[in-house]
């Protein structure tokens, strides 16, 4: 996959150190499933953690701790098994066009996602997360040639393109590309003619639309 837009370096470090909440970690992981370059970057960033762990000063552990561990491993309620070898998989997964980290929410196929129309040409699929996350996660399906409502960012926002393409002030975003934007960036994505654009979005705070029409619409659409 020819990915042009990647993760911000600060995001790579936040992901590697575990600072992203669930909505953002899912979008980042979905991008990683599509982008070798960022997967390599994360691996390097995780190496920092390994070095710091190795350098940690070492408090004593009670001598009984290892025995307790072995008792748990040998516990009567079923031996703890090794991971199934089937955990290994190709980045794209076996069949399906939904990246692996999104599949437990929407299944393997984009065709099977259920959409709710929220504005002419704009459909949304809200994803409920397994943890209490301050951020929200949703997918958008925007018709060819349609703009997304212009919005300033109340907080950090990340958009990963899964299908189709859009263009905004920053450039053309196609599958695998991620817009990892600061709160200061304002953009007006316009879906390219030809096919709809499907993307997955994590937002830190409710997005506020700037146009009057959009502002009236916001309570209804809940973007």
């Amino acid at each position, binding site marked *: 996959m020819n990915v042009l837009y990647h993760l911000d370096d600060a995001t790579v470090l936040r992901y590697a150190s575990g600072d992203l909440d669930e909505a953002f970690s899912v979008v980042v992981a979905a991008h990683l499933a599509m982008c070798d370059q960022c997967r390599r970057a994360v691996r390097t960033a995780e190496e920092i953690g390994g070095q710091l762990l190795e350098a940690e000063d070492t408090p004593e552990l009670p001598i009984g701790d290892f025995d307790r561990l072995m008792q748990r491993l040998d516990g009567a309620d079923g031996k703890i098994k090794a991971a199934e070898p089937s955990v*290994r998989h190709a980045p794209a997964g076996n069949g399906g066009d939904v990246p692996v980290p999104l599949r437990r929410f929407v299944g393997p196929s984009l065709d099977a996602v259920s959409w709710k129309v929220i504005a002419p040409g704009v459909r949304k699929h809200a994803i409920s997360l397994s943890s209490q996350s301050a951020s929200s996660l949703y997918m958008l399906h925007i018709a060819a040639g349609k703009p997304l409502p212009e919005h300033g960012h109340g907080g950090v926002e990340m958009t990963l393109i899964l299908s189709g393409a859009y263009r905004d002030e920053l450039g053309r975003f196609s599958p695998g590309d991620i817009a990892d934007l600061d709160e200061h960036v304002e953009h007006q994505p316009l879906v390219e003619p030809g096919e709809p654009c499907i993307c997955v979005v994590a937002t830190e705070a409710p997005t506020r639309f700037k146009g009057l029409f959009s502002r009236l619409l916001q309570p209804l659409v809940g973007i």
Partner: protein
Amino acid sequence: MGLALRVTQLPNDDPPERLAQMHRSLIARVAGNRDREAYKALFVHFGPRVKALMLKAGADHAQAEDLVQDVMITVWRKVELYTPERGAVSTWIYTIARNARIDRLRRNSSRAYEDLEGMDLPSDDPSGEDVAFASQRAERVGQALAELPDDQKQIIELAYVHDMPQSEIAGTLAIPLGTVKSRMRLAYGKLKVKLEEMR
């Protein structure tokens, strides 16, 4: 309680590469034939380090010791997923500890990370010597970390070791969030320069 496991600890004055190599062979023994002696040696080395990490992340002693147990159980259970091309054993164990920290201390979800666990990369190294490349990478990252200016190193440690959210780092150090991000980017940039010298 007075007796501590560190009596049998691996020699710590070994050069880092020898230590890393020893860890790889211990992991291979656990993966190959569920070798309990090898597993114990890993526990003795990494258990206290994981505990220190959890304490600095805000866990109390009992919680930190429970987390050590969880992390080591995961090491046993997922040992087949470790491959030396991925990086140092310490790095793999760090990621397991990080995920446990996300689930247990932050009460968030580390599922997204786990979804990517089995995913391999195309070869990093043009010559195909991925294991040598990976261990050299770990060494370079260590060097780059040691050479970071204090203000950047501090932010890296607060994030990786103290598990401090980005916004809290800004608050604690009384600097703007943008400065936290730019120091992170600078620090990571230096790592990248070090790694590019390898290619």
